[in-house]
């Protein structure tokens, strides 16, 4: 048996390598720095490239350039760095660039507490660039999940030609745990669909809005084009409203229309439960302990743990909320994802938040007490 005792950041780096990641650029920031260090150590041996950039803007810029030249790219930072990524995230969305962005969340706003945990970047991830187009975001709760979901993030990035967030936190990334990586069930590796070499290449070709365009590497068999400006399918600047709307519909439908395929979650439902806990990230571990305890005391409680946060797994959430009296949403922020539950829960279902942002974890006891499960 091959147990190891490793932190989440090491799991993320090793999962990236296993997924075929061959380009990494990052800028030091607690609590994400050890991903940069691991990648600098691991990538050259695998024939890849890792570089510490001059700032976060350069980190993601390098990654976008490399990804468009055909590399599988990843960058990692924390909330302050994501702020600096913001404009380039929009570029990666409209340029349809496969890219994995790790946000190891820490207590904010601003510099906040560099070494303390929080999960306060949930809505920021969704709305973190101008224009408001959808994004994919996955959130691990354990070191093993950090490994599995990093693999899933690379797959989604390739499959949808899109930037994908891995929303880790200090609590997952810097906590060491016993893992058995060899025993994990991993998704089969996905590679981006490449454009045929013998036909004219159209960088954003689609017939149906939901279609994901085939990709041609810069420096490959085709003349490739890429632009930050409003463009048509050939990546030429356009001011034609019909064309512009068609492109926007495409970016929107490509992600929002793939909700089923993008939904990753864990259900622990109990027949006849009146209470449902919806959680994600490290807080879902406290929920697991709280639910066990509540059931031990004879309460009937269900739990839904979301690994995919964006796009919102609406179908699964609606189904889970139907039939319960109350939904409890514990979060290490002041109630960001609760907004999504509130809009999805059927009328009459009460939605209760258990929230704090004091840099400590929400304990199972707090969920039992503040969630009314005692």
């Amino acid at each position, binding site marked *: 048996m091959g147990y190891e005792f490793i932190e989440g950041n090491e799991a993320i780096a090793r999962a990236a390598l296993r997924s075929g990641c061959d380009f990494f650029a990052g800028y030091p920031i*607690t609590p994400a720095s050890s991903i940069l260090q691991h990648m600098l150590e691991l990538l050259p*041996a695998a024939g890849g490239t890792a570089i510490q950039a001059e700032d976060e803007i350069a980190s993601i810029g390098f990654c976008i*350039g490399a990804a468009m030249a055909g590399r599988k790219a990843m960058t990692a930072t924390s909330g302050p760095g994501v702020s600096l990524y913001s404009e380039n995230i929009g570029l990666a969305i409209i340029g349809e660039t496969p890219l994995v962005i790790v946000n190891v969340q820490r207590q904010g706003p601003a510099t906040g507490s560099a070494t303390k945990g929080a999960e306060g970047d949930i809505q920021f991830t969704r709305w973190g660039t101008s224009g408001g187009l959808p994004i994919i975001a996955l959130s691990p709760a354990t070191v093993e999940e950090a490994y599995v979901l990093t693999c899933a993030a690379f797959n989604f990035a390739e499959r949808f030609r899109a930037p994908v967030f891995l929303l880790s936190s200090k609590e997952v990334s810097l906590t060491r745990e*016993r893992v058995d990586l060899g025993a994990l069930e991993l998704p089969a590796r996905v590679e981006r669909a490449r454009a045929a070499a013998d036909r004219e290449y159209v960088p954003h070709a689609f017939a149906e809005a939901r279609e994901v365009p085939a990709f041609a590497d810069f420096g490959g*068999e085709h*003349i490739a084009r*890429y*632009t930050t400006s409003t463009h048509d399918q050939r990546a030429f600047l356009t001011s034609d409203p019909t064309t512009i709307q068609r492109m926007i519909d495409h970016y929107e439908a490509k992600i929002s229309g793939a909700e089923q395929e993008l939904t990753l979650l864990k259900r622990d439902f109990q027949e006849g439960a009146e209470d449902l806990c919806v959680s994600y990230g490290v807080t879902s571990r406290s929920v697991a302990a709280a639910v066990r305890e509540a059931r031990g005391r004879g309460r009937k409680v269900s739990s839904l743990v979301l690994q995919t946060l964006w796009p919102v797994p609406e179908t699964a959430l609606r189904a889970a909320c139907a039939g319960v009296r109350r939904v409890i949403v514990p979060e290490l922020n002041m109630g960001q994802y609760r907004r999504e539950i509130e809009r999805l829960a059927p009328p009459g279902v009460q939605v209760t938040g258990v929230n704090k942002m004091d840099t400590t974890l929400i304990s199972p006891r707090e969920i039992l007490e503040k969630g009314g499960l005692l």
Partner: protein
Amino acid sequence: MSEAKAGSYLSTETVPLPYCPGCGHTVIVSAIDKALQQIKPDPRKTVIVTDIGCIGLADRNFTTSAFHGLHGRSITYACGLKLARPELTVITLMGDGACGIGGTHLLNAARRNIGISLIVANNFNYGMTGGQHSVTTPSASFTATTPFGNVERPLDLCATAIAAGAPWVYRATAYDKDLPDALARAIRQPGFAMIDIWELCVAYYSPRNDFKKADLLGLLNGQTMRFGQLADDPRAEYSERCRQAYQAAGGALPPRREIEVRHAHRLERQLGVVLAGRAGQKIRSAAALFAQAAIASGLHATQKDDYSITVMTGHSTSEVILGKERIDFTGIDVPDHVVLIAPEGVKQMRARLATLPETSTVYADQALELPATRARVHRLPLAEAAQKTGKTSLGVLALACLLEHQGMFPRAALEGTLAEFLKPELAAASAQAVAAGAALARTIAAS
């Protein structure tokens, strides 16, 4: 694929060149085309990288691959493309405005010597947004944002690039006869090459300052700037240097530490252990070795550390949870065992010590001052014992004492972990520390 007509790398088939009549950009774009015609690179292996500004519209007219990015960030994409595919010819076109907002990328690409060429179309103001002043606007001249004359000093882009380590730097005007040759040389450089081309913005800068072609040379008067080749000092390109450094280091990776279950634990319920001391006591590695020994005994384990940002001073604490089952909540509400080996650790744990229940146990060095607590306290000569085994073994010694006293897993598991994971010289000292810690535990049992 649109083929270049008669060898030209420019096309106006999709869009015409967008520049105002008389704009220097048209001259520069045509000179780049002539340079490319000299070099004849495969257009698919050539990327024109641009960003925002009038010059950034030029990529649409090249028949090569083209990448148009965020304002001032073209160098970052160019570097990404070049690092990913070193065989590419990557040509970056920027305005003087972009050199301001993206100045750090210019400095760092030059310093690293990444093999891209940077062509600066320098017309001393922002044309696209209405003629505002830029980092290169000459002193005393008029722009939309210097209504009383520019009070700032212009940045000497070439001197800046040279100071940053750019191996190849050249300054020209757009109207130099030999500009295509100079551009061709810049593009052919294996390392970072910058060419600063002075030119006219006929819509804004020229009329506001009555500025004509002949005045470009006059700008040098009173300044230290020069035209022509300003640096030509090639050195190994970045990717090449990376390869060399990696090979020279032998490419050895630290070994993975796989843990085999060789022992049987005696744990009944989940336990929370806190080891608290000060920086430099190897708290974190002692806690990790303890946790790994627990894993070698078939247990689950988690570890969280807390220490000051300036790592060599202040407290250092590690929280380890051991469990028979998977560990959900990774926090420790109430520690079962607290091991204290320095005053900094005591200070950090003060509030928690005050609320510990009778069921918790504290193992503390006998020299430490402790706050009142209901927990059972064992004061032991831990530091004194560690004097014989080495100061950095104190953490291991104290945890060995805890282990021997509580017996949650066999001492042999800890001994085996130390022997397997530590360097031989450290392993020997640590083995002695384990023996010494266990001996202290037996004094508790005896008393």
